[in-house]
């Protein structure tokens, strides 16, 4: 068993309106910054023990499917790395 850190990035599917991101973009523009778009995403970091990186990815993928993302509106990515504090 090894300890892995999984990073799950959940973002709205392309084309799904993100009013919070639009509002944040507007606030940056009011502060005088120039930008053409702002996209927001949620990032979750999970530490878990698994036989190998593949097994870790599989488990985290299911976590994203069942809770962290809503498949109707979200896409997500899972990245697996050896945990920084792993022995």
């Amino acid at each position: 068993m090894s300890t892995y850190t999984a990073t799950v990035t959940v973002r709205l599917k392309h084309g799904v309106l993100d009013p919070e991101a639009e509002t944040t973009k507007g606030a940056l523009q009011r502060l005088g910054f120039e930008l053409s778009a702002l996209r927001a995403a949620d990032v979750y970091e999970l530490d878990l023990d698994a036989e190998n990186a593949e097994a870790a990815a599989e488990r985290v993928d299911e976590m994203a499917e069942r809770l962290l993302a809503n498949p109707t509106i979200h896409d997500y990515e899972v990245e697996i790395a050896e945990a920084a504090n792993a022995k």
Partner: protein
Amino acid sequence: MTVAVIQFGGSNCDRDAVRALAYLGIDAERVWHEDGLPSDTTGIMLPGGFSYGDYLRAGAMAARSPIMDEVRAAAEEGTPVLGVCNGAQVGSESGLTGGAFTTNKSARFQCEHVHLRVENAETPWTQEFEEGDVIEIPIAHGEGRFEITDERYDELESNDQILFRYCDEDGNLTDDANPNGSTGNVAGILGKTDSVAVLMPHPERSTLPDIGGTDGQDILAGFQA
């Protein structure tokens, strides 16, 4: 018969729902989610509120609580289930109904009276109406924008699963009358069967005559159908 109004941590329309149902002569009681469904449950209402602080997404946490397994099983057996506001978000997140309710287009919490057009009058929740009737019911939500894939939206339409759409007082489906930017002005939809429905507007807030409006009565009466 008893309608179980399921109370999650952070539900806040459960008392209103019980009171509105009682006013209509429908036996109802609040049920704490950890206690499970009472054996004499003949209907289930998922009330409004802010269950679990809307953590992750509105309704996401409550939708994964164990009692929702019981609710899904009861729904499969034909027990009427009505999700209102946060209850609609819970119903959607739990898979009882399709699509998703997410942040209003305005990015603001909106608390106002809206008009709804009855799209399907052949359900327990709308049998007192005619298709095309316009009713007035309040909304109070920050995450009520109905989103769904194009493919699933077409299915909803062809299966007649759209219950209510936001409209103006004459029944026109305009952008101005769409308070949250919902796809197709959708305000409420049906699940796999007519006995399962979710809607963002609050029928229990337009049931008691002394708080303004009674158009919600006929929706809640669906529990008697």
